[in-house]
């Protein structure tokens, strides 16, 4: 079968899309921005019968706040996230991660749903979603279920979603004014690069101090899925986040990751870089906190 023979269906509503997905005789592949999908298609990797084009389903594109929760539609592009004042205020770590996705072209086309759907261990938004404690909503014709970002990914390219399910919402709690976050990426260059290691950090700080009341740290590209660094997290609250403390916390990071060697970097370098990025990230975050600029924008 040739790639040009794969037909494309463009449902007008979520419901229509879900109906189509129920057809067990045909195989489908969802198409959002296409920045991953088209690459796979060209490589001849995917041999499905139909593309299900989500572009026309406006109900999947939103950024809203309801009570203490932020909701993002999966069809929201990285650029839309970057320029959202709401997310700049409440999800700095995600905004920064989206800024690191490829370059302008990818950010304009690529969506957060697609980044999650691809489920790459190097996907840049995923550690940010871990750090925010995000919940991913899956919908099929029979109903909805909520899965936490941490439970969503099974392995490289694999998620808990069934073939008839689609991601319909990403949500997380709004952040208090002492919650600060940061995303750090090490790639082979600054733009258009796949992460060698990335890390998302989210901290709740005690006002007027460098003490941390709790936080989340998630690493990408150092294991089969994005990983939480729970030992490092536990150390965050041991004392004031001084440069020495930061260095101590960071030195533990290598114990939490299980990278492999590939063409981009060796496992041992990746392991050391988990520590380096965490150190750099915590240093920058605390400096920002101390300088009292909650937003890096």
């Amino acid at each position, binding site marked *: 079968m040739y790639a040009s023979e794969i037909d494309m269906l463009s449902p007008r509503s979520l419901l229509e899309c879900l109906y189509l997905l129920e057809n067990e005789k045909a195989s489908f592949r969802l198409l959002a921005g296409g920045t991953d999908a088209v690459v796979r298609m060209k490589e001849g990797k995917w041999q499905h019968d139909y593309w299900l084009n989500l572009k026309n389903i406006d109900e999947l594109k939103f950024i809203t706040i309801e009570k203490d929760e932020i909701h993002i539609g999966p069809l929201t592009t990285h650029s839309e996230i970057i320029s959202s004042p709401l997310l700049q205020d409440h999800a700095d770590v995600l905004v920064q991660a989206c800024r690191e996705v490829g370059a302008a072209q990818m950010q304009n086309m690529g969506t957060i749903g697609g980044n999650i759907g691809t489920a790459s261990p190097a996907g840049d938004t995923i550690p940010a979603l871990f750090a925010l404690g995000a919940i991913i909503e899956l919908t099929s014709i029979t109903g909805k279920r909520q899965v936490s970002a941490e439970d969503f990914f099974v392995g490289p390219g694999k998620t808990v979603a069934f073939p008839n399910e689609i991601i319909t919402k990403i949500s997380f709690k709004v952040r208090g004014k002492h919650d600060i976050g940061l995303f750090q990426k*090490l790639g082979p*260059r600054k*733009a258009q690069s796949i992460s060698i290691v990335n890390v998302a950090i989210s901290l709740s700080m005690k006002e007027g101090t460098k003490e941390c009341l709790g936080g989340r740290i998630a690493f990408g590209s150092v294991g089969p899925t994005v990983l939480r660094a729970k030992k490092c997290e536990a150390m965050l609250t041991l004392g004031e986040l001084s440069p020495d403390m930061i260095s101590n916390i960071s030195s533990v990071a290598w114990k939490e990751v299980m990278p492999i060697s590939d063409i981009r970097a060796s496992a041992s370098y990746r392991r050391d*870089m988990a520590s380096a990025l965490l150190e*750099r990230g915590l240093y920058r975050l605390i400096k920002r906190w101390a300088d009292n600029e909650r937003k890096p924008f």
Partner: protein
Amino acid sequence: MKENHFKYIGRPVPRMDAPEKVTGTLKYMTDYHFEQMVWGKVLRSKYPYARIKSINTSKAESLPGVVCVLTHKDIPGFNGFGIVVPDQPVLARDVVRCTGDAVALVAAETKEIAEHAISLIEVDYERLNPVTDAEFAMSSNAPSLHENGNIHSHVIIKNGNMDTAFEEADVILENTFYSPRQMHAFIETEGGWGIQEPDGMLTIRCPGQYAYRDRLQIARALAMNPARIRVISHPIGGAFGGKDEITVQIYLALLALHSGGRPVKIHLSREESVIAGIKRHPFKVEMKTAAKKDGTLLANQVRAVADTGAYASLGGAVIALAIEHCCGPYKIPNVDLEGFCVYTNNGISGAFRGFGVNQVCAAIETHMDMIAEKLGMDPIELRKKNAYEKGERSSIGHELKTSVGTLKTLETAETCELWKNREMYKKNISEPWKKRGIGIATSFHAVGMGIGLPDYGAATIELLPDGTFKVGVGCEDIGGGNSTVYAQVAAELLNCDIEKITVIQGDTAETLDSGTVTASRSTYTGGKAIAAAVPHMIRVLTEAASAQHRVEPENILIGENEYYAMTKNGEQVSTYEKLYAYLHENRLSTKVEGHFMLPKEKEELPQSGGAPHHLYGYLTHLALVEVDTLTGETEVLRVVSIPDAGQVLNPQGLEGQAEGGAVMGIGYTLYEDVLMDGGYHQTANFTNYIIPTIRETPVIETFPVESTEETGPFGAKGIGEVVMIPIIAAIMNAIYDAAGVRIMHLPATPERIYKALKSRDVRQ
């Protein structure tokens, strides 16, 4: 820029091709689609080294939509190509030597059918152990990949007495340098069109760097009169040397002969381009350099091994140029230099901007930096002390008869703002783990061909009915901007507005053979050829004006955009249109030619492979870098490029080259390498082949020093290659200045720098 009385020369004339390239309206050849076209595909070898036992094409032939399937049996002429020795089969017959080897060709109704057909061709291979290390390839244990063994060429230059030199020395440095397999990474991958015209003529439209030579190589494979082949090689979506050799021209020609007169298109995917396209030679350079306490260089011993991959292409010339340049623009009295160009099963290496000099410059300029440090000397002072001047002898022992700008470039470097304030820049770090450093390096690059290769240029100028001139130069514009320079030279000398000039390049039907666009030669060559043609055009126009107005030619004056005849009735004006009309009515030619030979050295250094050259361009680079010692990342913050290009014809064009070259040099030093394992490419495409983006592009300043080259057009030399050379060592030296580690295995990736930092910290 000095004041001059010229209208166009030395002025920042905007590039003629800029608007259509910037707006995207220019269609490159591979952008076209035609009615009735067929798609061509190439079957590449499955293995880096294997014997072919049989090829069965029957399944592919019977696939609906397939137009033809061709193998070595379908080659009417000589089954080989290669600029110097045609050792690369057009289509492999009994052996494949790299995964880029072509085994069969298909033409089909669609690209997908062609791809499918390719997968149906059954090739029975007997796998052989690939030779993937150049040093091993040279040993007696390695199987011979070609008839005459694996050493394609061996060049030697000796001068002085090495033994005593090393005894006298106060400082001796000995190091080994490894360089990457850089990819040209042009935007437009190899591709083009072939069609057999109804009269049997073949037209091949395929971006290249020398249409006339491509035509000869096609003709040889097809056993066809070259006059019956037209090659159009322009416009080009980038080349950098990577389209100097045959790319797909012969495949297009073969398929066109079997496609029933339908146009056939081949356009390599990036992945196929990576596998089949040529690369920069990875080098191993062992260098031992000696100096006296006062900084005088005493001796340099070099052994360089270049991995040319499966076929020679221009590998022999690359290693020869490397050895000619490996002592830098210095006068080292005692040298013992040798280079080997070696066959392996690692793809194919060939021409690439810099042509071997990049690899050796990295070594000598690192040694210069180390010597300066050991002696506590200023690195610029050390270079100035050893640089040769015009009239002096270079390290390889020949007297420089043409302009030499090294000293001027070094003096400019010394007084530039970045160097003067370097301590301030170095202190100016943003985070505690960042370290800044500034490095300097200088180098040179030959302009034109070496001894043994005829080097000539030719141009045509034709007056058109609308009173404009069509200037034809064989040399393509591979992105360097020579078309604009050609228009400037023609307009200046014809004394007309530049708008009246159209430049035609790279078309065997429209232009004369003017040699290749390599060796930094096309501004010099094309410019001189136009200058040679202009007097003929002026004579044609003067004679026409004199006949038209019935006055002696002495009474004709050349004005701006028109000619004046001093007649009895006063001054009469002849416009170009009127002159054309006169020439046309009287069936007189409106087209002239200009030819010239490039000057050369007379005596070749024995065994050097063509050294010395007659002309060289010189350049000094400064680089400011910041190293993140936590991660090993290096950022180049500022670059100063100080070229000696002779007289600058177009400052804006020069800046374009200087900036593009600097960025390419940054890529070479920090990011780029096509990784191979066991003869297979590990780097598949741009996902992992990292070239600098605008975010890796620093502020680049260009300060040309002008050392007039008497023989050049308006005093110009060539600059296309040297602009990317010293920056490599400048960055390496800056990394050392910043972080205290010497990375001698490029690219200096974050991981390599980090590891060097880590092992240094362990040692300390």
